[in-house]
């Protein structure tokens, strides 16, 4: 992959990393629009950022809170699994992974 515009191969690689199937008809749309987005955000390269600390969180001085390692929730697995596409015996069902 190169910066600037993206090729069909670049987009295929990105889609594969993101676990997204992109159809042949959709492909030109993503090649064009992702290229224009990448060109647009390339504007950032002009900013002088020497010695600037990257900012990951909007409020300084916030720390992850700790709590005692105790069970606070009751067993709700049936309610949660009611949303699953396929469940059997309390387990999620997926296509066979190992033959």
């Amino acid at each position, binding site marked *: *992959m190169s*910066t600037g515009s*993206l090729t069909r191969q670049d*987009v295929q690689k*990105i*889609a594969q*990393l*993101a*676990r*997204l*199937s*992109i*159809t042949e008809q*959709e492909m030109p*749309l*993503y090649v064009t*629009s*992702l290229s*224009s*987005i*990448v060109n*647009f*955000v*390339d*504007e*950032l*390269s002009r*900013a002088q*950022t020497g010695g*600037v*600390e*990257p*900012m*990951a*969180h*909007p*409020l300084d001085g*916030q720390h*992850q*809170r700790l*709590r005692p390692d105790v069970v606070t929730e009751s067993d*709700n697995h049936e*309610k*949660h*699994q*009611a*949303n*699953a*596409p*396929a469940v059997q015996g309390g387990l*999620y069902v*997926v*296509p*066979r*992974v190992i033959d």
Partner: protein
Amino acid sequence: MLHTLSIGELGKSLKSGQTSSVELTRHFLGRIERLNPALNALITLTAEQALKAAAAADVRRAAGEEHPLLGIPLIHKDIFCTDGVRTSCGSRMLDNFIAPYDATIVTRLKEAGAVMLGKSNMDEFAMGSSNETSYYGPVKNPWDTTKVPGGSSGGSAAATAARLAPFATGTDTGGSIRQPAALTGVTGVKPTYGRVSRYGMVAFASSLDQAGVFAHSAADAAIVLRAMAGFDPRDSTSIDAPVPDYPAALEKPLTGLKIGLLREFFDGLEARNTALIHEALKIYRSLGAQTVEVSLPHLPLSVPTYYVVAPAECSSNLSRFDGVRFGYRCEKPKDLLDLYTRSRGEGFGAEVKRRIMTGTYVLSAGYFDAYYLKAQKVRRLITDDFRAAFAQVDLLIGPTTPTPAFAIGAKINDPVTMYLNDIYTIGANLAGLPGLSLPCGFVDELPMGLQLIGPHFSEAKLLNAAHKFQQATDWHRQSPRGYE
């Protein structure tokens, strides 16, 4: 007419027994039934539960309970989990998802006695500025149904403007409360990052997402925000600080308030829009405030910064949608990889896929430093600009959007043009600051918004400044034709 009353007036009416919550709820459900088909603002109606909740609120009031929201109807953006009610986030991916629990703000508003009428349409996973990316179709702007209502909380904004409820909830990651509030002529508040719990709010970009409110006035928004805000141990970035009495702070005189006019917000702004902002500044000066021009030199980089940071966080957050545990699953997957890729490919719409791929790209090996790390550095520069400005002024002021509502279909095929709609709102998200949009006039018979931005935790000051403006003007009392 019940739908023209403020939350305060409705509370008095409920307290005196002039009306009941059941009557109020019926009134708004009737409006929704009659007016929503032309707007597509609500995608789920919970009429039966609403009437039950209203009856319960009436019982609580009869027993002597009082809360300013007891028995008041509302609409929740469909990004908030509601126990037993579909929570779709505007996506095919979650079209069949029944939330197994309530978001914290849903719980809090329920406990206060507010009555949920239904859930509002939105851009898919809150990614959009026009409400056109929803799986359920676009929302129409009640001021002109050929125009967008803005997004991503377009349904909540349109519903509030059409007076389908006294208030509605929303979320704002890059402007998704303030921009639609401006385009539909209502008051919208995006609180400080961490002020309102994110628990049970479907995540888009976790370092930017914040929940807030749409209402007909700053006074109404103050009542709602007070009930929504506050520490929540279930949100790891929730702020453990007391919630001020926002309604009590509304009447403070603005004498001596220093308001900074954001120079960068006027570059290229159309003359008629600029004129509206200058009219608003005149009103603020007549109320005793001083206005000075300030410059935030890195602010023009806020849109490209956002469109690296937000997609990066979204690509990570949306990896949970795998077709296994909940949400959409493709037909007849041939193996596990096929299940993942086709469930995601078919379950997500075009804009969501575009953002996931943008995020995947900027985080990928070889590009992380050039894009993601670089954007995080520029984010700090923008935040430092705001900090320097707030050393000189109490609040910043400018337009909420560059233009009034645009036509449905006008920008949807050009993502970068669409992204530039958020040019004035994104800065506050990057810096975690509270922002508010309030109506300040009309251009081409469409409402325009005035934006106020304050330092962290200055919601009381923002609401105070907005309330004083609304006492001196009547822009916030205008209703679109047919919805009076």
